[in-house]
């Protein structure tokens, strides 16, 4: 099932919000204390989430959360304020990049512990089911999380309880010989979910159409009352997708790039751009969308950087009710 042209432009804009937010941040990395993680290469998955999420759905992210939040529509200025420790940051300067969340867009809390958020997601889905509330729960985590026993326990619980969780494993690592990854003896990551009788498939997450369709189908099954689902979202590994990004070259995307290096071929945004133009959408229209978004990110960053620091009282308020 492919999407309408309007929705496709929406998806493209969501991907660009994710990318331009991170690039803007990388360009000012020296202003950020501590580490941050960017979502470059994961924009198609983020955009698919934005198209699939219903207003009653919850989303658990992880340390690499910028892209999904931008795709979902979180305010970039508020996020920059949080990352810069400025007043008006949604976490009051307590969380920074690692813990960005946005309840209005379905993200009530973000854990930076590997597998931490996915394990919480099972309980959120249990709540939805027992309270008879609408909505499913998306659990985003990386391939590394599959190393954690916590993921196995959580997959087993979700399967036993048949709660509406869509596990989305953003795998940005290369496969090793005979096994899923260098640290996973299993042949594939989705096999590790399937053994718990959680329906699991792998999808090319650099293909916006494929990941949108796969996530949409899985979500529809969950809404129809099926048990949990697992998507192995195979994401092109971008050299910068490591922690400690401050040392990183920007990798700023040039939409008009004619180059032909591996990354340009793999980049989900450029792939979708090529596909859209091949499908007859005018390049100028796409460049205009990009310029507007890029402009918005730069302005958001400037306003955030000019804002006062978060008030000192935020440090120790409200630890206990």
């Amino acid at each position, binding site marked *: 099932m492919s999407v309408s042209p309007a929705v496709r432009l929406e998806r493209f804009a969501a991907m660009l919000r994710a990318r331009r937010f991170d690039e803007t941040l990388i360009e000012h990395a020296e202003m950020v204390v501590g580490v941050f993680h960017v979502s470059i290469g994961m924009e198609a998955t983020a955009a698919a989430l934005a198209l699939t999420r219903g207003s009653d759905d919850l989303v658990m992210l992880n340390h690499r959360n910028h892209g999904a939040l931008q795709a979902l529509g979180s305010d970039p200025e508020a996020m920059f304020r949080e990352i810069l420790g400025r007043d008006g940051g949604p*976490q009051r300067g307590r969380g920074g990049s690692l813990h960005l969340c946005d309840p209005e867009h379905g993200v009530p809390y973000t854990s930076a512990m590997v597998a931490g958020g996915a394990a919480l997601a099972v309980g959120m889905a249990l709540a939805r089911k027992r309270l008879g509330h609408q909505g499913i729960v998306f659990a985003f985590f990386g391939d590394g999380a599959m190393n954690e026993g*916590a993921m196995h326990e959580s997959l087993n619980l979700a399967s036993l309880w048949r709660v509406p969780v869509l596990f989305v494993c953003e795998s940005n690592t290369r496969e090793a010989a005979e096994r899923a990854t260098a640290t996973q003896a299993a042949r594939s990551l989705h096999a590790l979910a399937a053994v718990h009788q959680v329906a699991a498939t792998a999808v090319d997450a650099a293909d916006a159409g494929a990941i949108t369709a796969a996530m949409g189908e899985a979500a529809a099954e969950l809404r129809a009352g099926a048990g949990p689902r697992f998507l192995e979202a195979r994401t092109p590994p971008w050299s910068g997708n490591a922690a400690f990004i401050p040392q990183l070259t920007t990798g700023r995307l040039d939409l008009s790039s004619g180059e032909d290096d591996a990354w340009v071929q793999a980049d989900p945004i450029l792939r979708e751009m090529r596909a859209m133009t091949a499908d007859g959408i005018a390049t100028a229209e796409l460049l205009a969308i990009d310029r507007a978004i890029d402009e918005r990110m730069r302005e958001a960053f400037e306003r955030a950087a000019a804002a006062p620091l978060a008030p000192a009282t935020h440090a120790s308020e409200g630890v206990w009710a």
Partner: protein
Amino acid sequence: MIATYHEARTRALERALADDPELLLLGGSLSLPFNPDDGLAARHPERILLPPISEFATAAAAVGASIAGLRTLVPVSTSSFLFYGFAPVVNEAANVRYLSGGASNAPVTFHMMCGSRRGGGAQHEHTLQAMFQNVPGLRVIAPGTPASVDGALHAALTGEDPTILIDHILLAPFDGELGEAPAAVTDPALVRDGGDAMLVSYSLMLQHCLAAAQLLAEDGLEVAVLEVATLAPLAVEELINATAGHERLVFVDESRAAGSPASHMLAQVAQARPQTHTRLVCTLDAPAPFATHLLDEILPTPARIAAATRALIAA
């Protein structure tokens, strides 16, 4: 009325299940296998979900459910099992309100049996309150009487903080006054008065302190006993005021001394009021041996508490 600790605990849980028709128990009974059955599993099977032996996912699911509006109580049974599910409690639940900037919170309760059940051995008789008190955001309550367990369960299951309910298998038979309405947790609470010294404690050791006070009374010594049920956040001012009348204070704790709630209480009082003569009576620095005659070599007993108090008064 007079009720046993076990009766008070059961009544408080029954009341909570009635008051909050959504409250979920993620795990079996609060009392079994080592206390009399509270009958809740039989009366409310639909309120109980029995998880696999997966402490991490179970704890995390409870925290997640509470974030999503389903208040959950996790009967951990033996506290040390939660070492397998430590991260969701100390590094997720405790941080939800703080890290979400106040947007979310996790009103989840973990109930666990701490201290020695006698014969459980080194891997089953821990006092996790010592560790949990150090985690900002966790409310840690360790009741020692029927009235305080009533208040503790009410506070935990109606409050907004992730709460650790420190229980003790050997408290079940102790009886005391129990009001009709849910008791409020008042910290600290004077349980017995006396002018020669004051014993400060919580959970089972509070009962041992009362027994020690009896022994001392037979020697003509009148000692007060103070219960501090809420270990975190500790009501420091109130503790300092409640102990103000006494120059001799004995802090009693089943935890090992290093990092114990008792040594923290002692430190707070000593800092505020030098010249106070204090003693710490804790479990000696060893794991809990299986054989009970060996266990009694390391645990604080009424006799040991009384002896330390006599020595302090004599000093």
